[in-house]
């Protein structure tokens, strides 16, 4: 009365897959031989595009095949300039497909940016959309971040727009190290301090400090925030420390780090940051406290005891130099 369902067994499925693989390998070899012989005889035509396209969607990392496509496009530009647009949109579709298959393929991303250089008008909205989709799937894909930087440059998108993009990514997930990295590149270019080009102006620095404090209080085990905070606070050279506003920033940060340390007495990141802040503010006066913290760090994070030991001896050495210069 009813059509009942019967399900294939795993063995049957595996057998089918093995056969498919063997078939694919034969097809791949045949296709490669044909492609190379066509190339040798100068047949850079629609057929070679079709064949290379088929192999590349299976394996986008064969750079020679991308090169053959590039040669074909260049030839088309010379022989059929009015048809270049069609060919270019074909390349954009193929690279997008390959990126979907392997979002980390250097070759697909490079081919796409090469293609953009071959046309006078680029639909940048489409390119940004592709990046958005790709970063939605993997917010740390550095190929995609790099590609975004390329199209930002080509489209002359404002740095402010990019800063806002980075802020939105961080609002979504503040553990996005790639986005903090992007800020570290953008901020000094948009808001340089009048005295020192390598650091931020006072107001922006205060805003960033607040942002990062929210991150470290929400999750003090997230390393992205700590790396960024270290850069934010300690990027300036010794001279800038004489600048009183920076010193008061460091003191504020020390106070909040110590609050956090009280709440999270076993957290290595906050211990290390308290150490570094004490060292910057008054390394000599705080030596005992610093060395105590370093002993605790070795206990809570034994994997890096070599680093902490070095840090301790480095600070002692710094202090000795200071003592000598003060006495002389």
């Amino acid at each position, binding site marked *: 009365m009813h059509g009942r369902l019967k399900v294939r067994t795993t063995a049957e499925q595996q057998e089918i897959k093995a056969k498919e693989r063997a078939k694919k390998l034969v097809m791949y070899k045949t296709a490669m031989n044909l492609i190379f012989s066509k190339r040798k005889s100068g047949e850079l035509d629609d057929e070679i595009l079709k064949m290379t396209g088929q192999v590349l969607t299976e394996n986008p990392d064969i750079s020679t095949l991308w090169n053959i496509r590039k040669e074909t496009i260049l030839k088309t530009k010379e022989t059929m300039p009015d048809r270049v647009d069609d060919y270019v949109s074909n390349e954009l579709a193929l690279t997008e497909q390959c990126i979907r298959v392997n979002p980390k393929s250097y070759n697909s991303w490079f081919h796409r940016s090469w293609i953009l250089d071959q046309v006078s008008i680029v639909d940048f909205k489409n390119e940004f959309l592709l990046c958005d989709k790709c970063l939605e799937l993997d917010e740390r894909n550095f190929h995609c971040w790099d590609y975004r930087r390329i199209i930002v440059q080509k489209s002359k998108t404002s740095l402010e727009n990019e800063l806002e993009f980075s802020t939105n990514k961080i609002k979504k997930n503040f553990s996005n190290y790639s986005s903090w990295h992007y800020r570290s590149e953008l901020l000094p270019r948009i808001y340089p301090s009048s005295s020192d080009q390598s650091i931020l102006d006072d107001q922006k620095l205060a805003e960033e400090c607040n942002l990062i404090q929210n991150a470290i209080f929400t999750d003090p085990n997230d390393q992205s925030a700590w790396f960024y905070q270290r850069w934010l606070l300690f990027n300036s050279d010794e001279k800038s420390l004489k600048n009183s506003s920076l010193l008061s920033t460091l003191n504020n940060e020390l106070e909040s780090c110590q609050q956090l340390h009280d709440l*999270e007495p076993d957290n290595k990141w906050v211990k290390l940051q308290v150490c570094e802040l004490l060292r910057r503010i008054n390394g000599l006066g705080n030596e005992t406290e610093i060395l105590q913290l370093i002993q605790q760090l070795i206990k809570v994070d034994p994997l890096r005891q070599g680093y902490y030991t070095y840090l301790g001896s480095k600070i002692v050495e710094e202090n000795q130099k200071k003592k000598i210069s003060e006495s002389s």
Partner: protein
Amino acid sequence: MTDDIPSPCDLLVIGTGLTESIVASAASRIGKQVVHVDHRDFYGSNWATFSFNNLHNVLGVNKGLTECIEETKKETYSIHIGLNSNTVLNVVEKWFISDEDVEATIDNQLRIEETNNGILKQTWTKSEVLKHSRKFNFDLSPKLLYSKGEMVEVLISSGICRYAEFKNVSSIYTYDNVESGLLPVPCSRADIFNSKDITMIEKRLLMKILSMCVEYETKPEKFQEDEMGNFGNFLDAHKIQGKVRKYLIDSVAMAKESTNFQDAVKNIQKFVRSIGRYGNTPFLWTLYGSGELPQCFCRCSAVFGGVYCLKRSTRSIIIGSDGQATGIMCDNQNLKAKFILIEDSLNPLATIKSGISRAILVTNKALTSNDQAVLINLPSLNGKEPVRILELSASTMACPQGLYVVHLITRQVTTAIEDLREVIDTFFSAVESNENEALHKPQIIWSLHFNINEYESYADMLPLNLYSSPGPNSSMDFDNHVIQARNIFKSMFPDEDFLPRVPDPEDVILEGSAEEVVLQESLENQEVHNVHE
């Protein structure tokens, strides 16, 4: 049709509520012959979702059922089914708008007026609302799904999820009695990071409590003292006060100060684990209403050979000489089965345990700026039970554009009207307000109050092969029902998988002609579809 009902079958299910439908689909899925009957003319029993017109019909039908008494043979006796007419009671419907606008009813269009300040404003009349009857989906028992809860897992693993669509609840609020306003609850790590309502120290404390609770099982030594007390004591011990305490009690743990520690922790774990799977809050809402879910399971059962009969009254359950149930009398037909499952509210051996007070409002404006599905957990005020509000916009397919469906749910103390009066007065207005547009409360266009009984049955009072399944309760999600359905299934078929994955289409080999099967399936689809319409 009558002749098509297979008898004897493996499992006879009476009532198409959620638990019954899950068990039916699980049994069909493993090849058991299931017959599923319901005396109603719609699927879903007390879980159903209705359009405006269907709601009116059903509330009418419920009043007029008659009891039947059946002759029995010597060696058997019968449990009579008094088709329970009183599960939904104290029904009070009220309109807050008139029906004077003749012009609008003629052209069947929304009337849009230009107000003084130039904002476009829709004015609704009763007949306009009723013209859109089919665009309304009113749930008798609206419930949410935890994104990592039992219901979602079973929908995914069984593949039944493809029969329904879901939307993430966009935000959760609690009530701030200090500032007398709704307070957004930061759900995810990102929300806590972005929150402007709490200090950095509070952020740390909130995160700490959440991660402690998530790790509860792995680090039991941390909790030895906490386990003794209630949730309030636990929060005291960790110095949790103010807004963070509110978030945790009202919304994350869905608890009270007096809730025992373990129960609160379990809820917190579920909440935290469910965040981020589909969106920023842990909850999903079923598009077109919660009543879709029992239908999805029925459809799955039908695809795997379950036989469905609506409008079939079960008059009695027949018990054999050995004390086991042998079958039922269904419209003068004796249907035999190895196992029988009946919904509590139809089971004469079940007793009323407690009740739920419900209100459904149609309003003209959202309570918050979030134009999606919003959950509001009101704490218990003045010694009253906590109230849960679910506000649904047109994007959830609950109502036409420009209107909102608001569900209010609380435990029954007196009647729905009394239990919910204070909350409704606080948030909604019964008349059109002349105050500043931005300040005034949403106006109620229509309201329906009712109570639903909760039943309780005791397995030891029933024959071993007769099971009774619980109807909707006041909990916010479906997970207890999924667990109960699984337990019933496992007790019937101890060695079988509960709703294993539905095979991929390419792995299905059709026995018999493909055409026949497709036809069969499409007929079944149509049947479910028609009832839904």
